[in-house]
């Protein structure tokens, strides 16, 4: 592990503290998790960090694009 310092403004710190508490983790762990979200996975091309960046809960998500974008027929 490498130790580093991060400066946050008051508002960000308060939000981070609240979120960490809600998740039952430290602020340091919250920052580590947030970093993992934006960094590409090891050994993977940069765009792979977007793989599965949303979780709709719908296994037919890619089939229902027209319904979401254009709406369903009346």
């Amino acid at each position, binding site marked *: 592990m490498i130790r580093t310092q991060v400066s946050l403004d008051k508002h960000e710190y308060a939000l981070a503290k609240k979120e960490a508490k809600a998740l039952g983790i430290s602020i340091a762990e919250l920052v580590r998790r947030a970093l993992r979200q934006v960094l590409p996975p090891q050994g*993977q091309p940069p*765009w792979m960090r977007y793989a*599965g960046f949303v979780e*709709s809960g719908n296994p037919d998500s890619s089939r229902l694009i027209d319904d979401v*974008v*254009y709406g369903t027929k009346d």
Partner: protein
Amino acid sequence: MARKIECYADTSAFIAFLDRSDSHHPFFRRLFSDPPPLFTSSLVVAEGHGRFLRRYDPRRALQFLQFLDELPVLVVWPFGAEELMKCKRLLKKYADQSITLADAHGLVLMGEHRTGTCWSIDRHLSLTGVPLVV
């Protein structure tokens, strides 16, 4: 080493890759990890953006655009008056099918590029004989 063949990427391919809940996600995750040259329509970009905007929020819609920017193998083809004319001809030919303008532009582009494969799960994209990757 064999040259990779250029493929057309439709909105459904992007969504399947980006949505971890989608049943095709593992397959498209594998494809996008080592993609061939890809091309798509600017209307597909608009559809994808609209999908994230309506289903989620402006932040995620922007992330979608950012993802496309970071995909170096992707070429986005513009859509103008000439393309509209070509699409109208195609839509008239397949007037019995519910084809969107984005699908029509994809079909026109695939015809012009003599594409071997289409990255899509939408059967409309195989109307002109280009096989779908799934």
